[in-house]
């Protein structure tokens, strides 16, 4: 697990504004290059749109529970990250994740896992995917901040102008 430079709890999470994502995959490219050519972000095809999905940083993460190598850990700040030297690529975490956020496609015998861009987080910056998103669809914010803008938060990580009406 990367060395942490702050122990303050990370309240913010990566949120996806459904009404702004143009499927450009900028987030994926930024994640890929920022993490040694492994991407911790994937896309899911929901039919009308292809949307990015990112780790929810669960408070009781199943991936941590099942990891036989103790590579997955949730640190004091609430960030669930993976130790690159300990991961064996067994795929237990992939199967355990109830949200399907982890991919079984291994890169270098390792499972890719979002760490909220540890290096940027330490500098008070947003993770790369949110920083590069041209339309502001990916946001690094708290639910309260999002709701303060008059937007609706759905399921904790999804944002929209309206709970039902889309685009």
């Amino acid at each position, binding site marked *: 697990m990367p060395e942490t430079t702050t122990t303050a709890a990370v309240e913010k999470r990566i949120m996806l504004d459904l009404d702004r994502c143009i499927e*450009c995959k900028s987030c994926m*490219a930024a994640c890929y*290059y920022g*993490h040694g*050519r492994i*991407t911790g972000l994937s896309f899911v095809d929901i039919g009308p749109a292809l949307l990015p999905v990112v780790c929810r940083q669960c408070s009781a993460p199943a991936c941590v529970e099942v990891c036989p190598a103790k590579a997955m850990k949730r640190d004091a700040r609430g960030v669930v990250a993976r130790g690159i030297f300990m991961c064996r690529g067994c795929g237990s975490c992939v199967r355990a994740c109830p949200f399907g956020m982890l991919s079984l496609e291994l890169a270098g015998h390792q499972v890719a896992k979002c760490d909220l861009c540890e290096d940027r987080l330490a500098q008070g910056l947003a993770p790369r995917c949110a920083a590069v998103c*041209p*339309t502001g669809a990916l946001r690094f914010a708290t639910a309260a901040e999002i709701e303060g803008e008059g937007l609706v938060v759905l399921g904790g990580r999804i944002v929209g102008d309206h709970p039902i009406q889309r*685009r």
Partner: protein
Amino acid sequence: MCSEPSAAVVETPAARCLLCNVGCPVRIRKGGPDRYLPDSPARDAGYAGLCGRGSVLADLLDHPDRLLNASRCTAGGCQEIGLAAAMQEAAAALEEKGAAPVSGFMETGAVPFSGRAKGTVPFSQRREKGTAPFAAAIIADGNLDLDTLAAAGRLAASVGAAWSVFVPPSDAGLVHGLDAGGSAFIGPEDLADADAILIVGNAYATHPVAAHWVFEARKARPRMPVLVMADASGVTADYATSVFQPRLRSGEAACAVAAILTGQTDALGPEARTLATWRDRLRGCKSLAIVVGAELDYADARALGTEVARLAAELGAKVCPLTTYGAAWGAVRLAASAGAVPIETILAEAPRTLLVMGVDLDSSLGRAAVGPALDKVVNLIYAGPMVNRTSRRASLMLPAAFPFEVAGRALLGPGREVRFGPLLRPPAGVPTIREILAALGSSADEKGAAPVSGFMETGAVPFSAKGTVPFSQRREKGTAPFADGPGAPGEGLLVAPAQDPFHFADGNLTRSAAWPQIVRPRPVLAMAEIDAQAAGLVDRGRAVVEGPGGSVEVEVAAGSTQRPGQARISAAFAEVRDMFGWTWDGRRPGEPVRARVRKV
């Protein structure tokens, strides 16, 4: 997963991504011995983000196909030689007159640089009467900085060679068409102030960062109209308040823009009636913006630009042009003012010596359009940063820096001149193209004050007057060539090129920016469900498309957004562009073709 180490960060001066004319500022930092990160620790990236293509710039720096040494190539293979020796050979070849003397061709300036050419005159006869073919020629990539392009022009003049600037035909056509119209122009950042926006083309897919300001405008005015004229399967259409999808025949987009003014939509099909309502919706707007994208290979981009300029003048709108080459606007203006000839003229002449700088002609235009000419060239000299299909034909290869590894200036659009620094310095021993030109005899201006002043401020591309006849009228007179209408049974589908970022794969200097491997770029054929069923195909199945220039295997995307009998295919793949079989005398680059589709 662990982020790259942030230690040993090497900040460089601001550079610009010129993979489109949004021209985002980009920074890079070294995150290891051979790792570069498209990032800025100090602030968020770019203007308002950075698209995937901009991120890929970092990937090119240590790309395995990078040219690092000069080579002399024969049928037996390539042999590395010293850079100085290679320069001498190249200079001698350019000076060599051969059997074909250089004539007064350079002074005529009568040949249109691009646009919808008069396809009825064979190219071999287009040269001015009484002039002889030239022995040497230079083709420079239009995404080089302006001073380098000017140096190429000076080298051509000093050795008596013809020269040309390669800009994608769609970009060149759009610049010509718009520059002739005297429109008021804005940059993408000004879109945030618009109270209504008309978007022509799939701008969100080809220029994701430009979409930022459209969203900002909508955030301020949630009920503002965003009218989109583009393929309905594109993401831009998803966010439109009203969509019109032109048919895939050449000229349809230009005619549709004209129809907004005239209200004459009969020739465009019943669904075009919606266009008649657009004018009324747009007329009352105080700050109307028209976004027009030079979609890859629009064969009718010049006519489209002309009609957009006309519409903008009538409605008092400002035009935000988006080109696929970031530096296209300046390159086209410079080429026009500095005596460059159309690229097809050079290819028609097949000079004895041809110096190609940075552009992969084979991949950009398709082998049918350039192969026969390049096969006749005796001395093909390639100077560029990477190996590509054109460099593999070369008898002499010179390594060169990427355009983003040098400082320079570019004209992103009217009134949008930018100066930029290098993203990083080129590898040791790799010269810039400007240095190569100087070594070959260009009268390099050390201060960077290239003799190109005057054109930056004006909107007058010299030979643009021919585009003033309304496209709709030209169509009625039958002077504009059109692709076929609905085909007879067995003729195949009418297939047009499409660009979207998912299938961005390979090509020339600019298009060599491939997506990360994980995306697995692959060509996709978007077709109507009914056509797919008729061919025994299923959604996401595999098919072979056989066109005039060859065949290509693709993934099928069957749906309701394409009209029966028409289909779009990802154009960013060299083999797809070969399939179209574009030529200069027949179907010009960008035009749809009839193709058969069968199951693999």
